[in-house]
């Protein structure tokens, strides 16, 4: 990348980050991120009211299960649909994509700038949510117990891993939906297909499993899920052949890069024809 291209990508980023954070049509994404915080907060308030904290290990397992089954697969997933599908789709709906297409900027630079802005927003919203969920879940425990867990029992490492997995999920799903947003007019169709694909990951042959984001994320989650979850959920979240963290991270990065390259290829062939929308 040349210096001009870097400054152009930054110019796109500067234009886009506000849209990604403050778009009116993206308010529901904040609600998605808030949902588990409210759930855990409610749980803690109830426990404080009845004056009986739950089993620490049980709450930790519940967090691991909810994180994988609910948070990653649904909330972060659909949050990324909202943020990344709109990067280009939103411009087409607003009939303003020509603003970028008529500038002396390569379209892959536009994609890079827009994707960086979307990723910043997604990571800021969902990683913050992960940290706040953690805080809300353990709020009803004694502070000395929390200190013990955080600083002497891998608590901070677990939190760091959850935050990192959330960020990787944003990157992986972000690249999926950034590319899909360039190709498809209707976000519902690719979102539905991909959610089914990701859900079916545990049932797919080993080779096909590698073509999904959740396959790599599962290997990076720090804790086992609750043994009490139903069998089908276990199939969804347990990785029978977990990968080494380095390979899993590389897998997500490689998938994202491939998807963004595909998106860039498609973007270069995109025509402005608002009338057809």
């Amino acid at each position, binding site marked *: 990348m040349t210096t001009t291209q870097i400054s152009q990508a930054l*110019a796109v980023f500067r234009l886009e980050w506000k849209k990604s954070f403050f778009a009116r049509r993206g308010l529901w994404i904040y609600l998605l991120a808030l949902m588990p915080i409210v759930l855990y907060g409610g749980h803690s308030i109830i426990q404080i009211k009845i004056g009986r904290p739950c089993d620490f290990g049980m709450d930790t397992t519940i967090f691991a299960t909810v994180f994988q089954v609910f948070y990653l697969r649904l909330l972060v997933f659909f949050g990324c649909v909202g943020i990344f599908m709109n990067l280009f789709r939103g411009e087409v709906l607003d009939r*303003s994509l*020509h603003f970028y297409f008529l500038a*002396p900027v390569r379209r892959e630079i536009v994609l890079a700038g827009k994707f960086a802005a979307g990723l910043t927003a997604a990571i800021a919203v969902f990683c913050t949510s992960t940290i706040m969920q953690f805080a809300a879940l353990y709020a009803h425990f004694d502070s000395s117990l929390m200190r013990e867990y955080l600083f002497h029992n891998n608590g901070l490492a677990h939190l760091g891993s959850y935050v990192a997995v959330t960020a990787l999920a944003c990157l992986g799903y972000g690249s999926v939906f950034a590319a899909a947003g360039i190709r498809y007019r209707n976000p519902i169709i690719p979102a539905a297909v991909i959610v089914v694909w990701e859900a079916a990951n545990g049932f797919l042959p080993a080779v096909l499993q590698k073509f999904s984001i959740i396959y790599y994320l599962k290997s990076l989650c720090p804790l086992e899920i609750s043994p009490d979850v139903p069998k089908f959920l276990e199939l969804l979240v347990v990785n029978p052949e977990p990968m080494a963290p380095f390979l899993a991270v590389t897998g997500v990065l490689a998938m994202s890069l491939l998807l963004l390259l595909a998106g860039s290829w498609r973007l270069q062939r995109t025509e*402005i024809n608002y009338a057809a929308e």
Partner: protein
Amino acid sequence: MTDNASYSRRISFDDVSKFYGDVLGVNRVTLSIPPGITSLVGPNGSGKTTLMNLMTGLIRPTRGSVRVFGISSSDPERFFREVGYCTQFDTFPRGMTGYQFVYSFLRLYGCTALEADELTWRSIERVNLVEAAHRKIAAYSKGMRQRIKLAQATCHGPSVLVLDEPLNGLDPLVRAETIALFKVLAEDGMHVILSSHVLHEVDAISDQVIMLSNGYVVAEGQIRSVRSEIREHPMQIVVRCRKPAEVAAKLFEQEQVVEARVHGDGRGLLVKTRDADSFYRLLNKIALNGVGIEAVAPADDDANSVYEYLIGSEETAR
């Protein structure tokens, strides 16, 4: 400038066709557009906007190639340094002020903050929008939106300015100022390509016209040369003189004159001729005989007449 250099500074369409599915946009267009003001004229759906969108790479040809100074739009970094496009899309990135619209385009162009600020004000001043620069574009009138689009299209000093219906929504004063601006830009060697449905303005502005109908180029060139090519409609020439009957009698001796009608005020006549050059030579001879010829002017070599002959009066030039 050598011929080769002059040719390389042209906009060229080489056997370009564009289909939207089964629907024809433009078909087999081959053009080489020189500097100056070129107007695209044609009815609704004739392919004017398609031609402009092809020229600027917003759409790609189904067949053929389009190049501006030999550069393809698939090389946007070079291409859009030469080209500015004021589109017909009356939409802007959300929430932007006029200043931000131009400024952010210049930052995309690669200008530093200082350069972008300076160029932004210069181009906003050129379209007289300084006072409204910090207002949201959403609150602009139609004419102001046209002007801010024009400011954006010209802010980086392009060599080719493509304008889709640029005079729409402008009041008469701003219209006149804008036309004057186009003329200045064209005199500086810029290619100004515009579409307009106001034919008398096309006449006043254009160095050459491209007439389109149903996706085909039906004529291109200077209006007078286009007119002279239309053989099936004799040229109409108004001759103001003291003795119109006498002049008419002499003119009728020539076989190329097909009609000569004395004007209602008895001070001139309308002549239809198949050969304007011979007619003018003959008129020179007649003038020497003291018939008091005061003025001679072609009556139908304007865009309106040419349009009517080639495309038809039943269609509105939009």
